Structures are given as C-alpha cells and as structure tokens.
C-alpha cells in the first residue's frame, strides 16, 4: 500500500508532537530557562529553509529579502545555542569550582 504524500506529512507531524511532549515531560523547574532557550535555538533551523529559498531565486528584491531572513535566522540559531551553553556552563562549573579556585577562566562556547 502506498500512503498519500499528505498523509505521510501528517504522520510525521503527529508523531513529532508526541515525541516533543514526551522528551521534556520530566524536566525540573531548575532547567526551564535553559530548556526554553535550547528549544529556541533548535527552531533556528529555519536558516536551512532561508538558505534554500535565497539560493534558488532570480529576483533581486527576493534576494535581498532572503538575505535578511538568513541574517535573522543565523542570529536565532547561533545566538540561541551559544547563550544556552553559557547558562549551562554555570551549572556545570559548580562542582570543580569548589576544589581548585584557580580555574576561573571563561572558556567554552560552542558555535
């Protein structure tokens, strides 16, 4: 049996809804802020869509609008992941910070 394309899309959508709820259902309130920020970065994947539409257009105005969309989407994606990492770094730093007090340099930040 071959599924209609629309049904395939609907299936992916519905399953993703359940997965999305299931994976975060046990989050503690301590992590609400980083989780929101991390999820925020993930929807920055619209950058992929922005690159695809901008790179296939012939129209100059569309090119300009597309480039604006790329700038906005990159801010969302890159900024989102970096800021989340910065927050989480503070949670992680707590344990080693108790022993050697010298390890105070601000390292890290994935892009």
């Amino acid at each position, binding site marked *: 049996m071959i599924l209609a394309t629309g049904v395939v899309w609907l299936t992916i959508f519905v399953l993703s809804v359940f997965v999305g709820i299931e994976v975060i259902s046990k989050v503690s309130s301590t992590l609400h802020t980083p989780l929101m920020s991390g999820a925020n970065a993930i929807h*920055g994947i619209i950058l992929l869509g922005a690159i695809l539409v901008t790179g296939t257009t012939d129209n100059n105005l569309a090119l300009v609008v597309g480039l604006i969309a790329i700038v906005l989407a990159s801010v969302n994606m890159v900024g989102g992941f970096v800021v989340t990492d910065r927050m989480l770094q503070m949670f992680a730093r707590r344990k080693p910070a108790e022993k050697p007090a010298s390890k105070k340099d601000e390292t890290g930040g994935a892009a």
Partner: protein
Amino acid sequence: MPTWIQLVFLACGVCFILALKGLSGPKTARNGNILGAIAAVVACLMPFFWSDLHLRHVPLIIIAIAIGTIGGVYGARTVQMTQMPQMVALFNGVGGGAAALVALLELHEHVSADIHENWFVWAATAFTIVVGATSFAGSAITFAKLQDLMTSRPVVFPGLRYLFGITLGAAVVLSVRLAIAPSVWLAVLLGLIGLLFGLLLVLPVGGADVPIVISLLNAFTGLTVAAGGYVLSNVLLLIAGTLVGASGTFLTLLMARAMGRSVANILFGALKGGSTLGAGVASDRPVKSVNPEDAAIMLGYADRVIIVPGYGLAVAQAQHSLRELVDVLGERGVQVDYAIHPVAGRMPGHMNVLLAEAQVPYEQLREMDEINGDFTDTDVVLIVGANDVVNPAAKSTPGAPIYGMPILNADEARQIIFMKRSMRPGFAGIENELLFDEKTSLLFGDAKDSMGKLLNAVKAL
C-alpha cells in the same frame, strides 16, 4: 533531493530529539545543547553540497550567515545573566520573522513561476506568515517590556478587545483568501496583520506574566517553522519545528501551573477588563526600618535563617556578597538555606542560573515545596530583592493579579528582614502586606551596598 541528504536530515532530526531529551536533565543538558548545535550546523551545510540544487549567490549567503553569526555570538556572550529572558525573546522573535520571510519568498517563487499547489500548501504558507509575524512583533514588545524600554504594566485602551477581534478575524479571512487565490500582495498584507496581532497580544500582558508569553511565542515560532517545513517540503524543518512547538506548548503549561495561572487568563485577563492593574505607586503607610548593625545581630544570633533571593539581588549584583554573608553565618553555626521560588527572577529557573553564577553550592538551594514547611521553625527570613513571591496577597486577596500563585511562606517565620531600595511595589505592581507586618523590619538601600554593610557588621560580631 539526493537520498544521502535526506538521510543526513533524518539523523539531524534524531539529534534534535536527543538534544531536547538531554536539555531536560541536569547532567546531560550541556551535551544535549552541543549535540543540537552540531546537528543544526550540519543541516545548514547541506545546501552547499547538494549539486542538483545549483545553489546561487553563495558568497552573499555566506556573508549574511557571517553577519548573523557575529551578531548572535556577540549578543549571547555579552548579555548579563539578569537580562537572559529578553535575550531569549529577541532570538525567538528574529527566528519567527525569518520563517515568515521564507514562506513569503516561497510563495513569491511559486506564484511568479505559475506553479499550482494544493490549497493546503497555501494555507500552511498563510499560517507561517501570520504566526511568524505575530511571534516577531510579540517578541519585540516582550523585549521592550523586560528591557524597561516601555512600561512593564499591562497596556490596555478602550476598544482593545474589538480591535483584537477584528484583527484576528481579518487574519482568518485573508488566510482563507490566500489559500484559494494566492498573491504576493495579499501575503504581505497578511504579514502586516500578523505584526499588529502580535502587538495586541502582548501589550495587555503584565510584567510578571511576560516569561510565560516568551515561552508561548517560542512555541509559536516552532509551529511556524514546522508549517514552513511543509511549504518547502523539507522534513527536517517539519520535525524540528513540531518538536519545539509541542515541547514549548507543554513547557508553557508547566510554567503557568507553577504560577497558579491559566494561559488563557494570562493572555486575555486584561482584555476582559479585570483588575490586572496594580497600584504602581509607593505607599506612605508606616513601616519599621532597621540599620545594618541591628540586622546583623538578628542574623548572627539566630539558629536558622532562610534567604529569599529575588531579581533585585541580581540586578544590584549583590549575589557574591550574599554568598559571603551565608558563608560567614555558616561559620558561626547558623543553619542557612536559600528558598527558591519556581518563578524567582524573571523566568522559571532563572534564579538558579543567577546563583550558580555566584557559585552558590547547589545543596543550599531549596525548592519551594521542599522548604515551605520549614518557615515556622525559622528565626529570621532575609528577603533580598524579592517581593511578589512572598506577597500574602496571593493567598488572601482574590482580586490581586497574583492571586492563586503559590508563594513562599515567609510570613510564618519569627522575624522578617526585607532588604529594599524603596517602597515601590514589585514587578506585578501590587502592594505587599508583608512589609507592614509587625514582625517585619526593613533595611533600606541599594542591595549591594546594604549587603556589604550587613556582611561587615556580621563579621564584627
């Protein structure tokens, strides 16, 4: 699309699921985030390796990515931890704006090439444009409210609810029209209506509820990206957007529950003309003030002290002095804990981040449910820069905007020291009865300054 790229997208989708899963546990959170970042970067590289696509304008695209990356990294690295909520709002807003523009461009390409699509594709396009624009404008207002660029109190004006209804109606009618007969101008108009709708949605929301709105708009942008994925026939965008939309909606409900509010009440409370407006002015009722030396004696000779930190603590950058004070009290044999309200700070979990920055040991941070029973055995509660989270009006005054929000039972302690800069009400704009309680002493002054004096006074005991 080549099969191998489709498989890469599938792998990236799985990585996003694992990233969200990781982010919801304290030990795995950082790795989860890094995994998500790697997947996102890999996915965005794919168009450059996809030879059949004949990607053009590559140098311009790379320059645009570079500009966005530099801006994003700069913002993310320089933002103060206290300003985190508005940063998240900003990043979310630009993502929503980008999604709306992408859908607009895709529509433009299809219309100018005279490609006929299923009406459902056009409907999804309309959804992406309206909701993306809503998210953009809503996030901009949220940013302005949190950054004190405008009042954080609810903005309502006569006829707001009618305007709100008309805008919503227009969005629906134009979306239907676009689904039947797509045109670029109609789509642009729809985008403008989306912007107006975002404005009207967030303006009436009061300051204390803004974090919930950030979370909701985050979910909106997720759904926008999902719809955009359908429009572009890109499975990865559909999966990632839906994941964020679903988890964001769920997270919004969790947060609203932690504040004892319903999402509908937060969004439409002010529209119904309820009394979400607080007094917003300083009261001149008599209060008892205390100097740092006397406060030091109260703290230094107590057996049990609970600290209630709030956003004001972090704004004044007093958390380092506070940690030192707690250390000194600990050396004197006083048992000290921090009571963390779930919405202390300006976002759920924000206070934990702020105290972690000051390297407060995790074991001293106690969550509300865990510590609320301990207040009756507590000699002194020290409230620093917090207000609404200890306001008994949440229990006693049904008309108050924070009514129903679970609070820390600071009023049950034997003595209360309130460190305050002035008598101005908290973020929710309502007066706090606890300030006038006979057990309460107020230590006026800038939190950092007072904390330094208090610390020296305790050391001198």
